């Protein structure tokens, strides 16, 4: 794919003098070891939350939607807020594995596995809400265009809610396939290391008989690239379709053409915040600091700054066009003067503070590279992006065109319990994953070890002249040999510049 030569100015992506074997051992360690007390403690808490949520869901379905805080004016509130929030969180995973693959970002390799897992678990949570917010969820299969005995009564393909069904289910299946394909070499690695027959059997099944031949690898790479090419438009279209739920309507504040790209940017923004939250914890707990380095965290923070900037421009646009339209109904939308001063002012300002003001601190390099601060900002963004969806949905609905139907919304404990339950479910899945799956794509990390590992970077530095690198690094034939054998004009300048870089 790309040459093995790497500009000396690039910081190493793998630290701690790692060799190929070290990578294997470090990645396999959590899978091969036993869970400690704190894992069981956290897992139990998550499980209790999940069971509590399950109880709330069962209660809702058997009693009726009236057990939620919805009213005749505000027919969507926490249910769809949580749905959009979870779908949004899922987007970072696909972004990291697909979009960053297309852009050949090597740093994605240490984070993509967990990001994709996060995607899948988040989409599972999201997928619950379209079902449970139905009045009659047992008829949910009617949304599918299946030939039937009602004179083949079909669905109306004009509704974005139906597009949601297709979007989310396609998204989940493609993400799952993409994730699993990437897992094959890593499962095979665990299979080959397993000492217990049961473990060997399980990972033997999971790895589909992967033997790592040249032909397999070649096809593996091609499939990954094609899937990345497909997943990129998919990830954009999924959240676009979710945004259509609102933007196709006539509700002031919802009907806005910027929603498709703005929702996608917001999804990446919140998704990366969630990845930060999870990975900052994970790298500490299972000793992956040498793979998920401070540089990775900084890069993700930069993505957060960028997408946060895009979202901010969209906020300004919404606010401006709301005013510019000259339509009085736009005065009460989620980003309007009326919202900033009305009964939901607290939600408006929570949105502005969490999504605009606090992330601005990430422009400062010191804070961007500060793990504790990053963790805090990521949490704040997750809260802020929940408020963004809440504001869009509830504030816009609360003051519609007819003042006689203006209303306020307050959640019941069942609304809250369901949301808490999905968070519990998410962590149950994620914690199980962290103990049974290779959380870093070791096969991929090994491909960058020699170009981006600090051990090899040091070796290169010691042998500044290009001729020596060939001996040290054992370049494969495909690795852009021109980089190292041919002499280039201005070579001496470059070498002296390398030293300069170190000094800078």
């Amino acid at each position, binding site marked *: *794919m*790309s*040459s093995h*030569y*790497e*500009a*000396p*100015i*690039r910081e190493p992506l793998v630290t701690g003098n790692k060799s190929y074997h070290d990578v294997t051992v470090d990645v396999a360690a959590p899978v091969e070891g036993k869970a400690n007390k704190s894992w069981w403690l956290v897992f139990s808490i998550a499980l209790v939350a999940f069971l509590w949520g399950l109880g709330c869901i069962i209660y809702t379905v058997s009693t009726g939607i009236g057990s939620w805080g919805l009213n005749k004016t505000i027919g969507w509130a926490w249910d769809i807020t949580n749905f959009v929030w979870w779908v949004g969180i899922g987007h970072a995973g696909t972004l990291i594995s697909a979009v960053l693959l297309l852009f050949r970002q090597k740093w994605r390799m240490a984070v993509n596995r967990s990001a994709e897992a996060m995607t899948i678990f988040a989409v599972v949570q999201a997928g619950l809400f379209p079902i449970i917010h139905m009045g009659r969820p047992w008829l949910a299969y009617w949304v599918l265009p299946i030939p039937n005995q009602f004179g083949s009564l079909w669905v109306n393909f004009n509704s974005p809610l139906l597009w949601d069904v297709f979007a989310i289910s396609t998204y989940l299946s493609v993400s799952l396939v993409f994730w699993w394909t990437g897992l094959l070499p890593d499962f095979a690695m665990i299979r080959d290391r397993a000492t217990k027959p049961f473990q060997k059997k399980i990972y033997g099944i999971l790895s589909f008989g992967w033997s790592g031949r040249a032909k397999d690898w070649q096809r593996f790479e091609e499939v990954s690239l094609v899937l990345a090419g497909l997943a990129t*438009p998919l990830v*954009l279209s999924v959240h*676009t379709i979710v945004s*259509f739920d609102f*933007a*196709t*309507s*006539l509700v002031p504040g919802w*009907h*806005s*053409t*910027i*929603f*498709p*790209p703005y929702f996608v940017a917001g999804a990446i923004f919140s998704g990366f915040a969630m990845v930060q939250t999870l990975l900052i914890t994970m790298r500490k707990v299972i000793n992956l600091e040498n793979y998920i380095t401070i540089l990775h965290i900084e890069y993700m923070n930069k993505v957060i700054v960028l997408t946060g*900037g*895009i979202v901010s*421009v*969209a906020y*300004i*646009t*919404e606010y*401006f*066009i709301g005013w*510019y*339209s*000259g339509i009085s109904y736009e005065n009460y939308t989620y980003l309007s003067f009326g919202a900033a001063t009305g009964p939901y002012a607290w939600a408006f300002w929570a949105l502005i503070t969490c999504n605009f003001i606090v992330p601005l601190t990430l422009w400062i390099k010191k804070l961007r590279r500060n793990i504790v601060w990053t963790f805090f900002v990521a949490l704040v963004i997750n809260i802020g992006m929940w408020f963004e969806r809440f504001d869009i949905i509830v504030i816009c609905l609360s003051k519609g065109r007819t003042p006689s139907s203006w209303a306020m919304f307050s959640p019941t404990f069942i609304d809250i319990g369901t949301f808490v339950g999905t968070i519990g479910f998410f962590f149950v899945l994620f914690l199980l994953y962290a103990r049974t799956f290779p959380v870093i794509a070791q096969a991929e990390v090994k491909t960058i070890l020699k170009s981006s590992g600090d051990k090899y970077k040091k070796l290169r530095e010691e042998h500044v002249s290009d001729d020596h690198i060939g001996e040290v690094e054992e370049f494969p034939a495909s690795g*852009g040999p*021109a*980089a190292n054998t041919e002499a*280039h004009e*201005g070579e001496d*300048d*470059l070498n*002296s*510049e390398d030293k*300069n*870089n170190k000094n*800078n």
Partner: protein
Amino acid sequence: MYKQSGKVKLISIILIVLGALGIGYGFITAPSTIDEAKEILAAEHGGHGEDHSATANEDHHTAEINSAGHVKHVEKSEAHGEEVHSESHEDEHLEHVLHQLQTKPWSATFVAGFFFLMIALGVLVFYAIQFVAQVGWSPVLFRVMEGITAYILPGSIIVVLIVLFAGEHFYPWQNHELVAGDKILQGKSGYLNFPFFVIRAIVYLLIWNTYRFFAVKNSRDQDDSVAIKPYRKNFKFSVIFLLFFMITESTMAWDWFMSMTPHWYSTLFAWYIFATMIVSALTVIAITTIILKKLGHLPFVNNSHLHDVAKFMFGFSIFWTYLWFSQFMLIWYANIPEEVTYFTLRMEEYNLLFFGMVVINFVFPILILMNSDFKRIPWFVVIAGCFILVGHYIDVYLLVMPSTVGSHWSFGITEFAAILFFLGLFLLVVGFGLGKAPLKIKNNPFLKESENYHY
């Protein structure tokens, strides 16, 4: 060092002269009285028969809802009711047509002028992104990009002048009489007023040109410096520029395009124009690179570099379509009267262009540039590029023409001459810009990665 050949210079100058004459012709032949407008109308409808002119009148009526200077017209006719189809109505209609016909040469010049400006501007944005993203493959193309952005200075000055002097031809909100009778426009006057409009235009001009000046200066400084200080400076400048560009691009789109139909609004509009900008810019980078390589000036550029640029052309063509569709579908779906006029006019009066553009800008690139082998073949990329450029010229045309001249559009001498004029200017300035420094940069920390880049 690249030096523009005398032949190309001569051709550019001929293009400029021919273009200037054509534009002048457009302005001279524009009707100055209602009678002249009548004649032109008669000539337009001649041969179509009476039947057609009746329907045309009807068409104009829908068309006018959106077009410049018309707001007054519609409100009056609403007030009078349909029964007053008398002479006064006819007069007003003719006055309106006259206005549109007088606007035609202005619009033709603006479309071509902005088209070439947006190419240079898009290249500047792409250039800034290369620094910010620490891209390893593209540094060998930096001088090509710098050369193209040389056009920003003359291009932006001309466009700003057109925008400022077009006045009521483009911007009905500059008509005080009209604003006085229109409550909605009065509400917008805090933003849509002439002094603020001028200030904004000058701010855009300053921001874009300042960045271009310092970016190029640092890039040249880097050639003579072994330390990478100029590179680091450029990194910082690029970040700041992109931040300001995100904001100025939005307001620019609202100012120069959206306010042509001051009652209409769309939140996505500015980003949509950005998509057009960036895809055209990438295409021009690709074509310029291919030409220079063919002439032997870029021996260090290989087909992997071309492959990458072509991938971006492919990707951003799809991105453009995504935004085009999102804006169109959402407005079509909701069908709110005050919003939908924008597309009704375009679909009724510009049907073939409107949908043809989508085919050229989406279907064509997606079919041609999907195959990765094709993306490495220069002539293939050039052909795809020509289609993309034509498609995006139509896109700009459709942004401006329906809003300013309504149904009285055509593609004649003036439109063609305007393209020639700006093409000549573009060739001349870009050729000059490319010749200012060696086409290979030196001492950029990623240069070596870029030289040895293979995909």
